[in-house]
């Protein structure tokens, strides 16, 4: 377990958040157990960087340059078909957006180059699919790769990228193994926090901020969900809470969670931590309300999205979820631009892949289409101001500081609640 080494979770809500002091502030119903459920965010505080102009939107982005010159390809590995394709297509769109904002190309040493995204489907994020996609990208002579979207597929493609000297930036692989176990010298990076950073944030929120003592921990047994839930469950006792129940739901396609919820109800916890994706978390929250459970449910970025909004509806009110960076809100400038371009809301990882693409584009502008130099440039990324926060990589390939925002679901939509920065020690 890597958890112990990353206990440097620093609450740096600094200028962003005013936390209500301990003790309930009165008004509204207080669920038994949680002493501070009415903790509120500072009203009207500009929480999200999204509300400011995009730092990377080049001034000339509205007047696209007709890109010319030789074609340089940025690879993308992810799900482009099947029932998880919205994750993959969303991330690919993020790259496309970055390229289009750069004018469809770049100039290096006075010579113009045309930029393209080479998106390869990894056949439902399977190991074999990831390897074939990776080989295709190598054959296509891409200069660097963004992907995969899920952790196992990212790890399966990793060795091939490493063997071919390609920088790999995953927008969304949160499993610690992705960077911890990568072949040396490292070529894999990620622009998202790790499970073992994000899980404790949820635990801290429930126990410390909201004052809930008895927590039920639920996960969907996916690599992602279980990783998050385990990390949260490890942190809860350290914060002074107790894990009173551990339940698992079967992932895949909606489903019935009433029997798990009935069991949880029998243990009368103060709150639930749910590690998993919106596909299950939405119905889970809804069915909890149907069973008359009004206790808060907290979780991670897997369900801090519009999908949860549409699946849980008003039943989601009172849920909390952390997300990397200032996260995606329907009001943000990024989402507005995204929607204007792709005629739909951001689903999940477009901002992360957008940042990853911009890091690569900057490297290309600096050193041209040279695989090895791009790897070095990505490794040297320091204080890069992206839409998901300030990005610097440590020697492992993780973000040195990950900004998380905890969002509260109220009145049928996500509202920013609290910002947390966690520091990631180098290996």
């Amino acid at each position, binding site marked *: 377990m890597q958890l112990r080494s990353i206990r440097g979770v620093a609450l740096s809500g600094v200028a962003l958040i005013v936390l209500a002091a301990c003790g309930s502030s009165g008004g509204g119903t207080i669920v038994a157990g949680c002493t501070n459920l009415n903790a509120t965010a500072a009203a009207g505080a500009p929480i999200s960087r999204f509300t400011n102009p995009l730092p990377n939107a080049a001034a000339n982005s509205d007047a696209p340059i007709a890109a010319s010159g030789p074609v340089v390809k940025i690879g993308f590995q992810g799900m482009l078909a099947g029932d998880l394709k919205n994750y993959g297509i969303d991330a690919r769109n993020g790259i496309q957006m970055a390229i289009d904002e750069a004018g469809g190309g770049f100039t290096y040493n006075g010579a113009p180059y045309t930029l393209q995204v080479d998106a390869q489907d990894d056949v439902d994020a399977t190991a074999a699919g990831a390897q074939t996609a990776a080989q295709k990208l190598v054959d296509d002579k891409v200069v660097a790769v963004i992907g995969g979207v899920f952790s196992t597929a990212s790890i399966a493609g990793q060795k091939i990228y490493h063997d071919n000297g390609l920088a790999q930036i995953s927008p969304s692989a949160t499993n610690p193994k992705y960077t911890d176990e990568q072949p040396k010298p490292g070529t894999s990076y990620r622009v998202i926090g790790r499970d073992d950073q994000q899980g404790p944030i949820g635990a801290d929120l429930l126990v410390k901020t909201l004052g809930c003592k008895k927590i039920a921990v639920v996960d969907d047994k996916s690599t992602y969900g279980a990783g998050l839930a385990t990390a949260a469950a490890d942190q809860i006792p350290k914060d002074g809470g107790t894990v009173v129940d551990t339940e698992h739901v079967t992932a895949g396609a*909606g489903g019935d969670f*009433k029997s798990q919820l009935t069991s949880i109800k029998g243990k009368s916890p103060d709150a639930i931590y749910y590690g998993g994706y919106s596909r299950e978390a939405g119905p889970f929250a809804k069915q909890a309300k149907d069973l008359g459970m009004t206790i808060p449910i907290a979780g991670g970025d897997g369900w801090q999205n519009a999908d949860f909004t549409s699946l849980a509806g008003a039943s989601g009110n009172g849920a909390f979820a952390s997300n990397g960076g200032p996260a995606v809100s329907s009001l943000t400038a990024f989402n507005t631009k995204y929607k204007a371009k792709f005629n739909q809301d951001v689903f999940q990882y477009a901002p992360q892949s957008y940042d990853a693409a911009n890091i690569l584009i900057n490297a290309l502008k600096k050193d041209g289409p040279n695989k090895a130099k791009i790897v070095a440039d990505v490794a040297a990324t320091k204080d890069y101001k992206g839409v998901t926060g300030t990005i610097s990589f440590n020697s492992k390939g993780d973000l040195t500081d990950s900004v998380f925002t905890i969002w509260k679901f109220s009145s049928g939509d996500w509202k920013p609640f609290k910002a947390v920065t966690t520091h990631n020690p180098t290996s």
Partner: protein
Amino acid sequence: MQHCVDLLTSGITPEGLLQQLINGIALGSIYALIALGYSMVYGVLELINFAHGDVFMIGTFTIYGVVQVTHTGPSTSLPLLLAVLLLGTLVAMAVCALLGFSIERVAYRRLRNAPRLAPLISAIGVSFVLEAWVTTYLTDRDHALPTLISGQWPIYGNVSVTNVQIVMVVSSIAMMVGLQFLVRRTRLGRGMRAVAQDREAAALMGVNLDSVISFTFVIGSALAGVAALLWILNYSISSSIGFLAGLKAFTAAVIGGIGNIPGAMLGGFFLGLAEAFGAAYVANISCGFFSSSYQSVFAFALLILILVFRPSGLLRERVSERA
């Protein structure tokens, strides 16, 4: 050891048992309705119709579409709400029936005399096509309706049964009774039974094979349309729900004795209960060694046990003559 006894004694309460029983029966009624369609098709064709779950999935999207188009929500008045749901169900039944009919016509009919597993492959292919078609052209995201029908009745302690659960169980039993009547008492039903017993002999006796088989698909698929209503009142929908729901319905049909209508019903309820109790109590009865992630293991282990002792399912005496 004491730990295990505690788990058994304090972990399992009468109230909990009763609530899980209600949860299980409600869930089972959906499986049962889908299983009826599986079982009927199996009865006449001996075909595992893998596409049946996806027909059901299309049904859920149809009802969802009707509710969206009519702008129905929790604030809609009750009579209007019921009218919309009824309309949605009728449209879904029609769409499913038409789809079932077309699938049989396009993908199965010419394989009627092919080797036994050939139509199975065709069914799998159709299942892929339906799922992919939905994600490509209709929607690639999950959807859910807000809680439209609320309200519950307390029965014992803090155990209650919701109105939706009552609707689920009543409508699935009503459908089974209607179906049983159709099969046992009507001319068409006689044709279906004849085809199920011996296809060639039935054809020689003047039963129109094509129309009986088509009709079986139409009825089975229309039932999936009713199951779609029960599903969408409770759960979310996506292109992939069909496969899993179909798989569970197939399991239910096998538990009951595939080809047997009351058996499919019984199997559905049985599976629903097994899942509910499995998720709730597998930890208690295994001394905490297994957790609720073994829910499906519990259900499948029961299935295997049943089939070891009754190799043709709960209600089917006749041993399947085909290997």
